[in-house]
C-alpha cells in the first residue's frame, strides 16, 4: 500500500478544494443533471404521471415526435425567434449603449454619452425588473385588439384601424417577438455599456483625433472591442429564444394559437403534461428541446470564436 500520497498536507489541500466544490456540485447534480437524466428515462416510457405504473416503450415517443405537426410548428417558431429576436435585440442594445456611452461627442476632451444618458440607463433597465408574467399582463392591455387597446388607440389618432396584433395568424408570432425584444433590450444595454466601459477611453479618443466619425467609431472600434460581450449576449438570447413560454402562455390566443401560430416547445411540453397527461411524450419533447439548446450553444460558441484583443 502506498500511503505516501495521503500526507496530511495533501488531505488539507484537497479537502479544502473539495469543500468548496461539494455544495455547488451537489446542487448542480440534484437539480440539473439528475432531472435531465430522469427526463431521458421517462421519455422512454408511456408514463401518464399519475400512477407509478408504466411500461418502457423504447423510442416510440421519439418516432411520434417526427409525425407531430404541432411539434414541428413549435420548432419552426423557435427557428424564427432565434433568427430575429437576438439580432434585433443586440442591434438595438448596441445602438443604445453606444449612444449612452460614446455617442454624445467630446466634452472636456472626453467622449461621453448623449444628454441625459444616466437617466436613460435606468429607464432602459426597467423591463428587466418586471417578472415576465407581469410583462405579459402589461402587454395584454397594450396589444388589446379593440379600439380601446393602448397601441390601437394611439394608431387611432392617425386614423389607422385597430390591428389584431395577436389575432392575425401571420402577425401573432412577430408581435410576441416584439415583446421579447422590448423586454430584453434593457439588460443588454447595461451589459454592453459595461463592456464599453471596460475599453480604455484613450482608444476611442485616439480614433476620434484621427478623424473617425461616429459610424466608423462604432463599427471599426467599438464593436470589435466589445465582441466578447456581444457573443455572450448572443448565447443568452439564443437560449431565451428556446423558452418564450410565459409570454406565449399569457398573450397568445387559445394558448399557442391562433391555429398554432405562436406555439413553442415549452408550451407544448406543458400541454402534453398537464392537459393530456402524457408525461412520457412530454419528456421526449423536453429531451428534444435540451438537444436543440445544446446544439445552438455549441454552434454559436464555435462560429463566433475570435481572437481576443488585449489592451
Amino acid at each position, binding site marked *: 500500500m502506498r500511503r505516501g500520497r495521503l500526507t496530511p498536507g495533501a488531505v488539507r489541500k484537497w479537502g479544502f478544494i473539495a469543500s468548496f466544490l461539494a455544495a455547488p456540485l451537489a446542487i448542480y447534480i440534484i437539480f440539473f443533471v439528475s432531472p435531465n437524466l430522469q427526463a431521458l428515462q421517462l421519455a422512454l416510457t*408511456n408514463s401518464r*404521471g399519475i400512477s407509478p*405504473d408504466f411500461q418502457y416503450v423504447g423510442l416510440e415517443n421519439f418516432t411520434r415526435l417526427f409525425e407531430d405537426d404541432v411539434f414541428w410548428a413549435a420548432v419552426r417558431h423557435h427557428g424564427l425567434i432565434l433568427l430575429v429576436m437576438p439580432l434585433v435585440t443586440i442591434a438595438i442594445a448596441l445602438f443604445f449603449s453606444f449612444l449612452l456611452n460614446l455617442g454624445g461627442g467630446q466634452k472636456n476632451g472626453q467622449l461621453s454619452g448623449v444628454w441625459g444618458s444616466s437617466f436613460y440607463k435606468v429607464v432602459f433597465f426597467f423591463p428587466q425588473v418586471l417578472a415576465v408574467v407581469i410583462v405579459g399582463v402589461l402587454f395584454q392591455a397594450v396589444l388589446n385588439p*379593440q379600439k380601446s387597446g393602448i397601441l390601437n388607440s394611439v394608431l387611432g389618432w392617425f386614423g389607422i384601424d385597430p390591428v*389584431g396584433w395577436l389575432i392575425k395568424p401571420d402577425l401573432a408570432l412577430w408581435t410576441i417577438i416584439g415583446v421579447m425584444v422590448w423586454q430584453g433590450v434593457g439588460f443588454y444595454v447595461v451589459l454592453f455599456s459595461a463592456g464599453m466601459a471596460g475599453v480604455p477611453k484613450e482608444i476611442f479618443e485616439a480614433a476620434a483625433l484621427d478623424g473617425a466619425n461616429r459610424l466608423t467609431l462604432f463599427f471599426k472600434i467599438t464593436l470589435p472591442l466589445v465582441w466578447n460581450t456581444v457573443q455572450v449576449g448572443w448565447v443568452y438570447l439564443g437560449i431565451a429564444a428556446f423558452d418564450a413560454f410565459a409570454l406565449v402562455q399569457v398573450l397568445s*390566443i387559445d394558448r399557442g394559437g391562433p391555429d398554432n401560430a405562436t406555439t413553442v416547445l415549452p408550451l407544448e411540453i406543458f400541454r402534453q*403534461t398537464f*392537459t393530456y397527461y402524457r408525461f412520457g411524450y412530454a419528456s421526449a419533447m423536453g429531451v428534444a428541446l435540451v438537444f436543440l439548446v445544446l446544439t445552438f450553444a455549441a454552434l454559436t460558441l464555435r462560429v463566433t470564436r475570435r481572437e481576443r484583443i488585449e489592451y
Partner: protein
Amino acid sequence: MTITPRDITRRQLLARVGLTALVAGPFLSACATGGGGSEAAAPSAPAPSAGGASASANNPFNVKADAPLEVVIFKGGYSDEYATQSHEPLYKKAFPGATIKHQGIQTIGQTLTPRFAGGDVPDVVNNSGTDNLDGGALINAGQLLDLTPLFEAPSVDDPTKKVKDVIVPGTIESGLGGDPAKPYTLNYVYTAYGLWYDAKLFEKEGWTPPKTFDEFKTFAEAAKAKNIVPFGYAGKNASYYAYWMILISAAKIGGNKILLDIDNLADNAWNNDAVKQAAAAWAEIGKFMDPAYEGLIHTEVQTQQNQGKIAFYPSGSWLEAEQAKDTPEGFEYGMVPTPSVTAADQMPYEAIRAAAAEGFIVPSKAKNAAGGLEYLRQMLSKQGARDFTEKTKSLTVVIGATEGLTLSPGLTSVAAAQTAAGTNVVTFSSFEGWYKELETELRKQTNALMFGRISAEEFATKMQAAADKTKADSSIIKQTRNV
C-alpha cells in the same frame, strides 16, 4: 411501488411549499422513475361497506367519527363558500369530532397531480376548471373510488329513499367512466346551456329571441343597425362556449345520435351533414362578430354584454352568478334555446342542452374515503343543495331543493326552459373529458371557423382527421357510451 421515507418527505415538502407546476415537473419525474419497473399495487378501494356491522342510516359508510377529512374545492365561478359555510359545517354536524382541512384553489390538476403520483391524496376533490385533472387517466390508473355505494345509500332527508332516487335522472350516467363503466364522478350542478341575453334590452328594443337561424340573421341585421353586436364569444380562452352551440345545433338537426357518434369516435361522425349544417349556420352568425373578440377573454366579452354592446352570448347557467358583480341595474339575464337550423330538425326549438356538471370525486387511495362518500351524501341533502343554490345562484341535481327559494331572473328562465324542453334534452359531450387532444383541436378549429378562416366543410374535415388520429392512437384508452 415501495415508497422510501425520503421520497415522502420530498413530496410532502413540495406539497407544503406549494411549488408551481413547472417546478414540480422534474420532481414529479423523480417520483415517477424512482420505482421504475416495480409492480404497482392493484388499486383496491377501501370498501366502505354499506352493510357493515356498525353502519346505519345515519352513517351508511361506517365513517370513523374522529377521522380528519380533507376537501379540495375548485374556487372558480361558484367560489368555495358553499363548501366552507354549508357542506363542511353539515359534515361537522354529523361528525363533531372530525377536523376538516379545506383548500380552495384554481389549478386542481397542477396542484393535485403530484399528490396522486405520491399517494397522499385528499378525501374529496371538486375536479373542475380549465386546469382540472384528467378523469379518464385517473380512472385507468385506479385512482378513483367507485361511487356506487353512495348512490345506493339511504339519503339524508328520507332514509327510506336511496340517494339515487332523490337526484335528477341522468346524473349518475353523466359521471360514468372506465371499462366496464362505473360512476366515478358525482356531477352536482344542474347546468343548462343556451343563448343569454338582457331581457330588459330586448323589451326596450321590441326584439324577440329568434327561433330559427333565418330569424337569427334578420335579428342580427337589426341589432347591427343599432350598433349592437348580435352575438359574441371570447376566442382567447373560451372558444368551447362556441363549440357547445355548434354541437347543440348538430344534435337538434340530427338527434342526440350525432353527439353519441362523436363521443364514440364513429367513422365519419364529424362529416355528418348535421355537423356541417350546424357549423355553416353558426359561421354565418360569426360574420357579425367583432374580430377583436378572438383576442379577448370570457370576462371581457361578458362585461361588454353587461354594457349593452352584445345581444347574445353563449354560456351555461352559471353566467348570471359569475357576472353578478358587474351586472348593472336594469340588466336582467334570460336564457333561450339555440335557434332551429332546418325545418326538418329532429329536435324542436325548445330542446336545450342540460347536464349535470361540476364533478366531485373521491380518490381511491384517500385516507378517509368513507368520509369522502359521506361528505358527498351530505352535499346531496336538501339543506346542502338549497345552500348551494342560494350561494351560487345555480341549481343542483337534487330534486325539489329549491322549494321556498326565490330564484333570480336568469335561473327562473332556466327553469322555464327546462320545463318547455321536457324530454327534448340535448346530451352532453363526453369526448371533452375523454379525449383532450380532440377537444384542444376543436377549440382551435372553432375559432378558425367562427372568425372566418375556414369553411364549415374544412371544419368538418379537420375535426374528422383529428378524431381519426385519436381513434388510431393506441396510447389513448378508448371509451364508449350508449346513452
